[in-house]
């Protein structure tokens, strides 16, 4: 079931009513509704893969209980290893099996050895990259004794399968989300209203911006060989807009939906394209994933306390694996590599926390020239990396960049991009104006008439120019 579908528009109010009708003094009653709703939500795509989520849930629930009872370090390590094996095994099998075989084939082919792999061509279950990381978070947090294992299977199942963030995040931490399932939830009307506003903004980004620019992006990346450099540049910019609006739009809807049910999810995007360097970008882009890798990979490897070379190794490991997490293709690894190589100088110079806790042009309307330059420079680097993310193969990416940089600009008619560029500009302007707020429609403090006009404007925008043929979210393929 997709957020931008009629089915969800009916599903959500029904779940909302049933959820708040349940005995609010008993969180288990509400949790049961969440579990049932989540399984219906996920099963809407393909009910065959429900068994995987149930299996993953059961395995980590048992591992958690085992970790709670086990006192010996060896036993605890074995149990954690079991959880890692189950979750990463699932992920590896469904996502990377064919990729490794094909990569081996290419490598052997380079040595003149013919190898024809038996590919499985397994369908990738939607959301597997997200929920496996979420359940791993529980096992690791229990292992580290950051949280107590829960005996409440329904609450745990609700935590694993929580439908707003099940298929595309934010990837929540057990110590952050699970406790919310174990306590009473009270209805907070202001939180719920802001949740609705955030959902609306997410739908605008997805249906009005991302889906509208998609056709232009597809056109440029399919036909770049016959287009000039200007087209390639615009196409790359529009892809940056598309992937941001698609993914952050989903996160906004997920977070907003959760707030309707009384839950607080972590923020996943904080206006990353206004970043002044790559380290700030990574503190604002897919925050839940970078945080996961930081806490469960970077820090256990030694993190910032390791020696210089170990630290650099740890940084590159995080970026490479982060790229690899996105998909079974070397293009994603190169995407991660580019970001890692850009990040390392900041680490070496000790400037990777320079912009922590601040926003660009804080308290001002426009950035200072130096800030603007820093933002543009960072954005340019991000754009180059996005080419690899979008390309079908490394050859495609290099060829695209070569054309973009070598062909003359301004030779062709770029009028077809006027509408996508306009909606992109409007979206970026709105987010710039609201960059101190969690989302662009955080307008609770506005006068009533202005809020109502904005709400009707948003609805009109979605209905009048939004893509109403529901197009799948990009991150579902990860």
């Amino acid at each position, binding site marked *: 079931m997709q957020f931008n579908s009629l089915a969800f528009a009916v599903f959500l109010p029904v779940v909302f009513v049933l959820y708040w009708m349940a005995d609010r003094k008993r969180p288990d009653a509400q949790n049961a509704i969440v579990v049932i709703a989540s399984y219906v939500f996920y099963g809407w795509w393909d009910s065959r893969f429900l068994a995987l989520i149930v299996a993953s849930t059961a395995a980590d629930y048992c591992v958690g209980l085992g970790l709670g009872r086990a006192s010996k370090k060896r036993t605890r390590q074995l149990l954690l290893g079991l959880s890692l094996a189950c979750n990463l095994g699932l992920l590896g099998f469904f996502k990377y099996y064919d990729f490794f075989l094909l990569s081996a084939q290419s490598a052997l082919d380079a040595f003149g050895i013919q190898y024809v792999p038996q590919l499985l061509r397994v369908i990738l279950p939607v959301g597997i990259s997200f929920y496996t990381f979420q359940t791993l978070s529980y096992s690791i947090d229990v292992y580290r004794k950051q949280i107590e294992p829960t005996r409440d299977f329904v609450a745990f199942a609700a935590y694993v399968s929580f439908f707003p963030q099940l298929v595309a995040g934010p990837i929540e931490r057990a110590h952050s989300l699970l406790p919310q399932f174990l306590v009473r939830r009270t209805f907070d009307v202001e939180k719920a*209203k802001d949740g609705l506003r955030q959902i609306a903004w997410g739908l605008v980004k997805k249906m009005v911006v991302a889906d509208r620019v998609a056709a232009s992006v597809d056109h440029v990346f399919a036909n770049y060989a016959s287009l000039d450099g200007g087209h390639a540049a615009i196409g790359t910019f529009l892809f940056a807009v598309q992937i941001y609006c698609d993914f952050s739009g989903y996160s906004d809807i997920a977070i907003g939906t959760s707030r309707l049910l009384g839950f607080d999810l972590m923020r996943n995007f904080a206006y990353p394209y206004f970043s002044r360097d790559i380290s700030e970008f990574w503190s604002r882009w897919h925050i839940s994933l970078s945080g996961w890798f930081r806490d469960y990979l970077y820090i256990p490897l030694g993190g910032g306390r390791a020696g210089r070379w170990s630290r650099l190794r740890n940084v590159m490991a995080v970026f490479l694996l982060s790229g690899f997490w996105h998909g079974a293709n070397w293009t994603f690894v190169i995407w991660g590599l580019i970001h890692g190589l850009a990040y390392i100088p900041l680490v070496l110079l000790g400037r990777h926390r320079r912009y922590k806790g601040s926003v660009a042009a804080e308290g001002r309307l426009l950035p200072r020239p130096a800030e603007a330059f820093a933002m543009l420079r960072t954005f340019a680097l991000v754009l180059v990396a996005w080419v690899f993310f979008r390309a079908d193969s490394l050859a495609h990416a290099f060829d695209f960049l070569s054309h973009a940089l070598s062909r003359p600009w301004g030779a062709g008619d770029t009028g077809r991009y006027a509408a996508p560029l306009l909606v992109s500009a409007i979206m970026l302007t709105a987010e710039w104006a609201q960059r101190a707020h969690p989302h662009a429609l955080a307008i609770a403090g506005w006068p*009533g008439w202005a809020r109502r006009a904005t709400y009707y404007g948003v609805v009109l925008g979605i209905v009048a120019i939004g893509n109403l043929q*529901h197009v799948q979210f990009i991150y579902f393929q990860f």
Partner: protein
Amino acid sequence: MSSSSTSSSSPWQLLVAVARFAALPGLLLAALVLPMWWCGDALPIATVVDRQLGGEPILYGRKYYGQQLNVYKSQHLRRRKPTIAIVGSSRVMQFRAKMFAPIDEETYNAGGLLQGLADLEALATLVEQGNVPAPKVWIAGIDFWWLKQNADDRPTWLSAHDERDEVMHGAGHLLAARRFALAGPAEWKSAMFASRCDGVKLCPVGAYALTGDGFRADGSWRYGQFLEEFGRTRTYRDRETPPIEERARHRTRQFAPAPGLDSARVARLGAALERLKARSEVFVVLPPHASPVAAVARQTDGVSAYWDEYYAEVPEVLRAQGFTVSAHETAAFCEMADEAFFDGMHPGERVISHVLEELHMQAPAESALRTVDLEGLAMLRASTDHPLVIVDDEAASARAP
């Protein structure tokens, strides 16, 4: 949504606030959908098919909701289980059931179902799966641009196997409401004041049908607007936008330059037709063009080579595979002038009746097509001097068996 409510407000108050907010857009949506419902545009396809099969003289043409020809024609094929079925693009939509008397009631024109080679292959798959019943005879219309080396093979509605009626889901209503809102006051008025069917005259269902254009119960298409114009002028006009002749001259759209015939596609065409032939007789039609279009195509660089190759090779390849083929560049084969064409590439009923006659005469003696009464067909042609239509719409109403 006021910010003055306290945090302890109940969820139901939020629902009430949302419902109040949604009332205005809801009313606006209803105001847009109601006229579309009134004129029949919002009528579910299944209901239209029911009524046409029940004998109502309905002329069906949606304008604001998607036409969804795959849904409409597929439902007719499944419900009717015709003995003779015509498939192809719009260029075969002038086969009228009455031409196939005495088995007119067992004949259905599913023209519009196929937009390319991928659709033909999808149809073969649906037939093999039993999803679409196999008739005794398929008459398959093939269009010349299907076999180019750079032909578009993207899935269309048929090959994507999507049979959800737009009317049955909310996004369809929003899309249609948007199109209707942008259509302008003249269209709104036409939809709001559409006359109801009286069960006697050809009854328009759908905003497009209000203009006189639409699908008859036998699946053929009525060019009401052009027939009205033709009645006044009695001259040929390439009424497409842009005209077909211009497309050929400027090498655009169907006439985009192609290096040549794609032998792989020709092989795919043959294979798809063979799959249909496994269960039915298959006759192939390469519909003719108006003479100006053929003349320009033969002379234009980048088009002529493909055009000549297509007409020289494709019919022979298909005949070698045992198919009966009607392949003519123009209507010269039946001595018809360009007035017999609705536009540069859509022949009228009179030309199509000659194509049917040709197929009949080439068909094996035991073929179901041989039951067509050629004398009756000739009398139909003789009953009027109209170059475009030979079957009287008011009298024609294909009833279900």
